[in-house]
C-alpha cells in the first residue's frame, strides 16, 4: 500500500511545483508557434476589410479580476483598429472596467497620434444591461448624453453620423460574464450590425453555438486568443509571453493527472490482489 500515499500528496507540494514552473518559464525565454485559429482569423479579416473611417465599438465588459486575459485582447484589437484608421467608440457595462478601458484606449491611441474626440471616444459606464443596449440602438445620444470625461457626446466629431447602433460597422465585446448573449439578443439581432467577441477561456466553449450560427463572426478565447491576435497584428506583448507559463502549467497538470491515474490503478490492483 506504499503507493497510496501518493494519492494523498500534500497540496503545498503541487503549489510549489506550479510556482517553480511559472517562474522558470517566465525567466527562460523560448519561442512557441502561435498560428491563428479560424475564429481569431475571422475577427482579424473583418477589421482588415473595413474601409478607413468606419466606426467600431468596443464594449469593455470585464473588471480587474479578468484583466490578465481580456486586457491584452483589448490592446491588440485597438492596435489593429488604429493602424487601419478606424474610429473607435468604447463603453462598458461593468463598474470596474472604466479605468482599464480608459488606460487601454489612451495608451494605444497615443502610439498612433490619435486624438480623443476626433478618432476615438470613451463613453464610460452606464447601468441597465439589455435596456442600455436597446437605448443605444434607438438613440446613442440619449443613452450617453455625456462621455466618460463629461463632454457632450453630441458635440464630439468622432460620433458625427453615428446616431445609434445601426450606424456602427462592427461591435467587439470583451466579456467576463453574460454580456455577449445580451449584445447578440438585444443589439445585433435587432439593430443589424456585425459582431465578434473576446472572452475568458472558461467561457469559450459556451460561445461555439453562436460561432456556428454566424451570429459571432469570430472569437478570441482566453489568453491564447489574445496571443494569436497579438501575433496577427505583429504586436507581441503580454499574451504571447504568457503562452510560455500557460503551456508549461498545462503540461504539468496533465503529468499530474496521468501520474495520479497510474497510482490509482496500481493501488486498485494491489487492493484486489490482497482481498
Amino acid at each position, binding site marked *: 500500500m506504499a503507493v497510496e500515499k501518493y494519492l494523498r500528496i500534500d497540496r503545498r507540494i503541487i503549489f510549489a511545483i506550479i510556482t517553480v514552473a511559472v517562474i522558470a518559464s517566465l525567466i527562460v525565454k523560448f519561442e512557441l508557434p*502561435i498560428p491563428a485559429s479560424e475564429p481569431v482569423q475571422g475577427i482579424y479579416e473583418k477589421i482588415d476589410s473595413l474601409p478607413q473611417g468606419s466606426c467600431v465599438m468596443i464594449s469593455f465588459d470585464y473588471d*480587474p479580476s479578468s484583466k490578465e486575459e481580456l486586457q491584452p485582447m483589448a490592446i491588440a484589437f485597438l492596435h489593429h483598429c488604429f493602424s487601419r484608421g478606424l474610429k473607435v467608440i468604447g463603453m462598458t457595462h461593468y463598474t470596474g472596467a472604466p479605468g482599464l478601458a480608459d488606460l487601454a484606449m489612451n495608451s494605444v491611441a497615443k502610439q498612433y497620434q490619435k486624438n480623443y474626440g476626433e478618432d476615438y471616444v470613451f463613453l464610460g459606464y452606464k447601468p441597465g444591461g439589455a435596456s442600455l443596449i436597446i437605448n443605444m440602438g434607438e438613440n446613442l445620444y440619449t443613452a450617453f448624453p455625456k462621455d466618460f470625461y463629461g463632454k457632450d457626446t453630441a458635440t464630439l466629431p468622432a460620433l458625427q453620423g453615428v446616431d445609434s447602433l445601426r450606424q456602427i460597422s462592427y461591435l467587439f465585446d470583451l466579456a467576463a460574464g453574460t454580456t455577449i448573449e445580451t449584445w447578440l439578443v438585444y443589439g445585433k439581432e435587432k439593430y443589424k450590425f456585425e459582431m465578434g467577441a473576446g472572452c475568458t477561456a472558461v467561457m469559450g466553449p459556451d460561445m461555439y453555438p453562436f460561432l456556428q450560427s454566424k451570429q459571432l463572426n469570430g472569437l478570441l478565447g482566453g489568453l491564447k486568443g489574445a496571443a494569436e491576435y497579438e501575433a496577427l497584428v505583429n504586436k507581441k506583448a503580454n499574451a504571447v509571453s504568457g503562452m510560455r507559463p500557460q503551456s508549461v502549467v498545462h503540461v504539468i497538470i496533465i503529468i499530474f493527472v496521468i501520474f*495520479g491515474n497510474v497510482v490509482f490503478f496500481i493501488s486498485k490492483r494491489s487492493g484486489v490482489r490482497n482481498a
Partner: protein
Amino acid sequence: MNFLKRTIPLVIAFVMGVLMTMQYYVPSRYSQNLLEVVTRWDRIIAGFAVFIGAYSLFHLHWTRIKRRVEGWGYSVFVYFGAIITLVFGCLNGGKFFWNDKQDGTMFDWLYFYVQVPAGATIFSILAFFIASAAYRTFRARTRESTVLLVAAVLVMLGRVPIGNYISHYIPAIADWIMAVPNLAAKRGILLGVSLGAVATSLKIIIGIERSYLGGGD
C-alpha cells in the same frame, strides 16, 4: 390591501408584458418612442438597485461585526475599503464629485494599485487550485470518466501552443471536440434554457407565476 399588493402588480405585469411583446413587431415611430421611454425607466430603476446592493452589503457586514462572528475582522475591512474609496471618489482630486472626473487622483491610485493587483492575484490563484483539484479528482474510474479525461487532456494540450509544437493534430482534435460534441451539448442546453425563459415569461404575463409578488402564492 390585497388589491394593492396583488391585483395592481398583476395588471401592470399583464399590460406591460403584452405591450412590450407587441411593440417588438410594430415598426412605427410611436412604438420606438415607447421602447425608448420604457428602457430609460428600466435603467433608472437599475441605478437604484446599486443602492439596495450597497445597503444589503453594509447591513450584512455590520451584523457580522456586531455579533463578533468568526472572521468579523474582514467585515471591518469592507467598511474600511468602501469608506476610503467613497471619500476619495467624492474628493475627485480636490475638484469634488460635481465636477468632471479628474486624472491621476487618489481614487485612480486605489484602483490601479489596490483593486487591479488584488483582482489579478485572486484570478491567478485559480491555476494552483485547478492543478491540485485535477490531481486529486480526475480519475478514470468508469468508461464515461475515461472519455472525459481523454477529452480534457486533448483540449488542455490543444489550447496552448505547446500542443501544436508536439503535433499539429492535437489542436485539430481539440477544435473538433469544441466544435462538434461541445457545440451539440451547449446548443441543447441553450434551447432548453431559452424555451424555459419563454414559458416563465408567459406564465408571469398571464398571472400563473406569482412568486415574484412574495408570499409564495
